[in-house]
């Protein structure tokens, strides 16, 4: 299990989700992915994408103008 970070700043919906979707394909079961976004819509979309695909949202933070979402990858469901 390893920790990864994805910079999705200045991308608008649905590009942050597309980037997460691509990155998740390269990760292993149990890996965590911290996604940094500036699109406030990511707070809705990335958790929705995770629910659909069986991944877990471990944490969401809204700091200044950035949204940071930490995901735990469930590879069997991806």
């Amino acid at each position: 299990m390893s920790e990864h970070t994805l910079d999705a700043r200045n991308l608008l919906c649905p590009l942050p989700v597309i980037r997460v979707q691509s990155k998740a394909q390269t990760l292993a079961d149990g890996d965590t992915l911290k996604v940094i976004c500036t699109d406030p819509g990511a707070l809705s979309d990335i958790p929705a994408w995770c629910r659909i695909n069986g991944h877990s949202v471990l944490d969401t933070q809204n700091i200044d103008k950035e949204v940071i979402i930490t995901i735990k990858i469930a590879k069997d469901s991806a």
Partner: protein
Amino acid sequence: MNPPRKAVALISGGLDSMLAAQLILEQGVHVEGINFFTGFCVEGHTHAIRKHDGAKPKRNNALWVAEQLGIKLHIIDVVEEYKDVVLNPKHGYGAHLNPCLDCKGFMVGQARRWMEEHGFDFIITGEVLGQRPMSQRRDTFPVIARESGAGERLLRPLCAQLLPPTLPEREGWVDRERLLKFSGRSRKPQIALAEQFNISEYAQPAGGCCFLTDPNYTRKLQDLWQTGAGKHYELDDIMLLKVGRHLRPRPHFKLIIGREEGENNYLEGYRRQFTHLRPAEHNGSLALIDGHAGADDIHLAARLTARFSQGRDLASVRMSVTEKDGPAYDVDVTPFTSEEIPQEWYL
């Protein structure tokens, strides 16, 4: 017992594709959704940018629909491949720059490739016969099936009973009798079906998910093609057309001026790629200069941008200018009055 057949559903985020997918789910078919990002999607972008739209849910409706249906959704970035559809539509444009028939053929074609790569059996769409003037007609449905390569594996559950039986119907993968015969532009049958399915919340009941059908947007796109290096675009070009006021005071440059905080924040992400300016001592907008601007042009741009600041009624407003890859400095300018700005400068 045979495993269930598998269908890939084109999910736009609107009601029709949601209903079509639900109809097929109810027949025991395994359904997964597919959604294409072309760069022209209305979905999400403007809501995400503009702060005044804060009351609207900031969500991707295709994802939301997929979650309501309990299906997976695959969002595919087709920005590069889609350029040829927009720039060279074989079947031409609609009322604006909307290449609807080419677009539908392209998307079904992409879904067909995905279907083949992932071992799925057929494709479903939310199309309704007679609902759209270009792409949803009895004579254009076969064009989409043929040009996409989907052929008889393309099923339109909402109007299937008005069309010849497709492979999934003939093979008994789905029961044709449980498909529908919606036609025309009325939304009443869809709304009634939504009630039957206990679907009470849905977005854009009449579709309309593409900026290429928007006259204000396509005017700016035409301007980009006519004043830039010809008929082509990059993703950043078409994204910036969605944001801010666009004014072209001279043929060789235009200004993109943020209209509110959300747009200013978005434009901040692009400022290093452009000469940009903002009021030094007043609240106001960030403006990007797109094109080649000399000293006189920058002065003109500063006067225009000052017009949209809180100093608009003053005799002099100090503007901070940062040239692309160049110096940063302040200039004092007299803001334009609204009467001094020719209407034809607004794109």
